[in-house]
């Protein structure tokens, strides 16, 4: 029985709640038990620019909370994932800020000893649950569906820290898409950034990067983008909708969250997977489902 502390971060509950609901549905089918720790706080990622102490303290408190319950962490967001992984690495190095963190945690009766593993949804699905188990749960598979997978930067890189997959030729996500019957297209900008980190700082830059990826995905023949990170998803859903509205973009390449895609293959109702909570219409993807 796989059991994890479920780390949602800040964006998902507030802006991409369908990612949470769909993940819960799918993981439940696959026998993964999720433990909610309400005391979890921000992973620290947004603070890395401005205050490394605040970053480390935020990240490590979460690790300590999971460790308290002897649980590994399952993360949905690639940025949270990268941030927690980096924090674990920094703590292993030791130093004066690290000592401060330990002292602070002690004042809240918490302790971090480095015993907690941090895993992204993709890792749990591909390695811990396994492709075969997933295949057994599918009620139908997609036919002629071409998907451009959006890995997300902070899972892949820096690879010595994240140890997620081969940073130059990753396959973990492609395999998970292919098991649903869909095809994972090769697209040149596959491993590039979605542009979300520049949102609110330089929107032109951010939109331009997103636009390039969207065009690139379409050129490679993809009908949908598939995302596994709320930042990427906001960028390719909410922001793409804004770009279309402002005519910065002609044709959409809608994004579907991976658990939504997998859930459809498992025969879960689209409403339960929150398909209509996406800004761009993705309901038609069901037309690609063929009965086994």
């Amino acid at each position, binding site marked *: 029985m796989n059991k994890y502390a479920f780390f949602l971060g800040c964006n998902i509950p507030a802006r991409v709640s369908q990612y949470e609901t769909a993940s819960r549905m799918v993981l439940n089918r696959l026998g993964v038990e999720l433990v909610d720790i309400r005391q979890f706080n921000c992973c620290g990622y947004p603070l890395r620019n401005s205050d490394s102490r605040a970053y480390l303290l*935020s990240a490590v408190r979460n690790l300590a909370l999971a460790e308290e319950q002897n649980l590994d962490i399952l993360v949905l967001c690639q940025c949270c994932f990268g941030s927690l992984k980096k924090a674990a690495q920094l703590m292993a190095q030791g130093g004066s800020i690290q000592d401060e963190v330990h002292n602070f945690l002690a004042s809240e009766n918490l302790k971090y000893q480095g015993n907690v593993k941090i895993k992204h949804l993709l890792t749990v699905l591909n390695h811990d649950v396994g492709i075969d188990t997933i295949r057994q749960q599918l009620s139908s598979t997609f036919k002629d569906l071409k998907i451009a997978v959006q890995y997300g930067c902070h899972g892949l890189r820096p690879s010595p820290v994240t140890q997620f997959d081969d940073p130059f030729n990753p396959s973990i996500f492609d395999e998970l898409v292919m098991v649903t019957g869909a095809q994972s297209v090769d697209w040149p900008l596959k491993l590039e950034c979605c542009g979300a980190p520049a*949102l*609110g700082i330089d929107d032109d830059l951010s939109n331009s990067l997103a636009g390039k990826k969207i065009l690139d995905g379409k050129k490679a023949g993809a009908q949908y983008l598939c995302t596994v990170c709320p930042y990427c998803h906001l960028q390719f859903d909410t922001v793409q909708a804004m770009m279309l509205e402002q005519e910065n973009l002609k044709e959409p390449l809608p994004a579907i969250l991976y658990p939504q895609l997998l859930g459809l293959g498992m025969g879960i109702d689209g409403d339960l997977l929150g398909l209509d909570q996406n800004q761009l219409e993705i309901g038609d993807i069901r037309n690609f489902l063929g009965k086994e």
Partner: protein
Amino acid sequence: MLYKVLLNTSLIIFSLGLFYKIFSWLGCNPRLKTTESSWTIRLQAGFTGIVKTVFSKKLFTLLKIFITDIIFQIRTLKEDPWRWFMHILIYWGFMLLVMLHALDQLITQKLFSDYVPTLNPYLFLRDFFAAMVMAGLVLAVFRRFIHKPLRLKSNRMDYYAIIIVALIIVSGVCLEGLKISSYREFQNMEKEYAALDDEKDIRALESLWVKDYGLASANITGPFDNAVIEQGHELNEENCASCHASNKWAFAGYGIATLIKPAALHMERVGAVTMLFFLHIISVFLGLAYLPFSKMFHVIATPFSLLTNAVMEPGKSNPINVKTRQMMELDACTHCGTCNQYCSAMMVYEARGNVCILPSEKMTFLKAMVNGKSLNQTQRGAILEGVYLCTNCDRCTVVCPAGINLKQLWLNVREDLLQQGDTQPIMFSPLSLVRSLHRQELPPEDYQKPLTATGQALAGDFKILTEPSKIFSLPTNTVPNQDTTLLDHNFIACFGCQTCTTSCPVVKNYENPEAELGLLPHQIMYCLASGLTEIALGSRMLWVCLTCYQCQENCPQQVEITDIFYELKNQAVQNLVDADTLKTMKNELTK
């Protein structure tokens, strides 16, 4: 006479306070700049909104919320059963006392024609409700002073609220105790209701009251003759029992009476009953007059906030009413601290010490701001940092027992402060994402202005680097700055292959990247190697870096370029908000 004067004065002050509050909800506070529409228009809009809601299906929603969230306070129960228990004890106890006891002639008498305050169940219930309030207050004191949940802050308003309620209840119970033990009260009642002629009969009745009803008498102390007590019982049944139950039912007052029995006669002589009576009514009137200006105003504002929040819909409701509600929400906050327990940025508060990062304290300072307290630059900076160091996770809004739409409040305040020209280096972080998602709500120039100003404050408009004529002199001491931990990041290993720059998606995005970015990634590495950290800090490249780690992953020398960028940005922010400012900020706010 005095009673009436006091009552009317407190009622007048209460009403004036209430009007003052309602006018400030309508944006009529002269010290507020946010009023685009006059108060009459806002009042009209509010009134129309209320009428429309009441005469629609939404009435059922209102009723449901009234029962679940106001009477039973389910929102609090879900968060913290203990705090719910504490608050329900105080809230129900006090409200029931107000109805049963304080307004008995207006309410209890109308509802129950047989109402006699000295008969059961009223005699018992009054003390029972008082005991509820007291138990709740004990829990409240325990919570605020002994248990102290993490990041729960207490301020004067919290103390005043506890003190005033405690004063009302304690003085009331003591007054009852004194009256129970009072010989004069007994004599008056005996004359008025029993009117016994026989000295022996009076003694018998008195004996019974001394023995069983808590009376302190100068004549009779016991031991008691059974026959006399028996006779007393008979007389009591005949003359008193029809409108006076045993004082033991008023258990709190009876307890006090038993406690003070040895000193009761002396206290009676110095007029303690009158004194306590005035203490009791003055504390009640004080509470009433002070209510609109104290935390206790939440008994009015919080139900309003819960009800309006349940029926108002973002995007659909009249924006004028949304503004009005936001002002009201400031008064609905009870400073209970639930938000702080779940705030995603709680560790940022612990690291930086700026109390404005905690939602409950942001509220306190917003209230102060709205009430016209002038804030200096540092304090405004602290509030802006507080509202910007928010991950917009909406948890505070989800858990708030008063149903306050905190997330919207933060966004509005954040924008207001930014538009007033305050700069905030944290703008250049992923925390700006939500501002971008809402950018269509702002005119484009207003959206861009604070970003430009902050960029300027951080790196002098990034212009210094784009002037080709500018000549930099190398520092004479070429040993890199020893203070920083950048050396740990082995940039010294850089051999100048420029792979970082060629793999950077930001660089690739521009035709003329140098003009746009100031320094390219490899140039930043060169700067560091030459000890020109200052110049590196002025590069726009740092702030539009996506932290996608392409450079670092691709570097053949394993230089941790992105992490070095992070450290440089930390340094730049620190230069802008140095440790001293942070310290003064902390001190001024905790004053």
